């Protein structure tokens, strides 16, 4: 498991790459919002039972881990530049993830919902463009 934390007085960031199931309850319990924050946007991605029309039972995720860490750091820096976000946490599963299991969990905390939603959506869109993680469907 890789965990990266970086706050250094600015936006809090936590990235976790893990081959273990994501504990959603623990993720929620670890939320940390200051008094000036009024919105926490969450996104949960789960493995679908079909891929390109074929039934599957799992997806195997492969990552170029040190580049993943660096590229997420660049995305987090851009979020900090664009929006008044207090904190971003992102957990991505690697290895074999079965259908219905959670592959991605994201939290963005901001003063208002507009920034929280915008930053969360932007982060996931950019992740799918630049973060070197690949999926290999495993047939049922």
């Amino acid at each position, binding site marked *: 498991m890789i965990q990266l934390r970086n706050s250094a007085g600015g936006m809090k960031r936590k990235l976790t790459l893990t081959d273990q199931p994501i504990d959603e309850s623990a993720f929620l319990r670890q939320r940390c919002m200051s008094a000036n924050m009024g919105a926490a946007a969450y996104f949960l991605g789960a493995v679908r039972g079909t891929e390109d029309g074929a039934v599957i039972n799992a997806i195997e995720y492969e990552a170029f881990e040190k580049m993943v860490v660096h590229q997420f750091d660049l995305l987090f820096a851009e979020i900090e530049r664009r929006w008044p976000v207090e904190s971003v946490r992102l957990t991505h599963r690697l290895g074999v993830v079965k259908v219905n299991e959670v592959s991605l969990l994201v939290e963005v905390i901001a003063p208002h919902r507009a920034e929280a939603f915008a930053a969360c959506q932007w982060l996931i869109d950019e992740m799918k463009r630049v973060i*070197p993680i690949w999926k290999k469907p495993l047939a049922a």
Partner: protein
Amino acid sequence: MQITIQFFSYLKELTGCAQISETLAAGATLGALHDRLLAQFPRLAPMRKSTLLAVGVDYQARDYVLQDGDEVSLFPPVQGG
């Protein structure tokens, strides 16, 4: 100069290896290395335009001039999430 090349995802299966090493003349570009790899591994040729190129942990354009010891990575479009 000596360059290490890593292949990820299905490019690894198409080349039959995860990592190789190449000796290039000083001043060689990333694009020139890519072309050489396409000649060496013709099964990569159909993905020429969609293949992403990185040096170290950063994406680089084909005109990037390689340095001795660079670690180059080739991979298909990413699919996280």
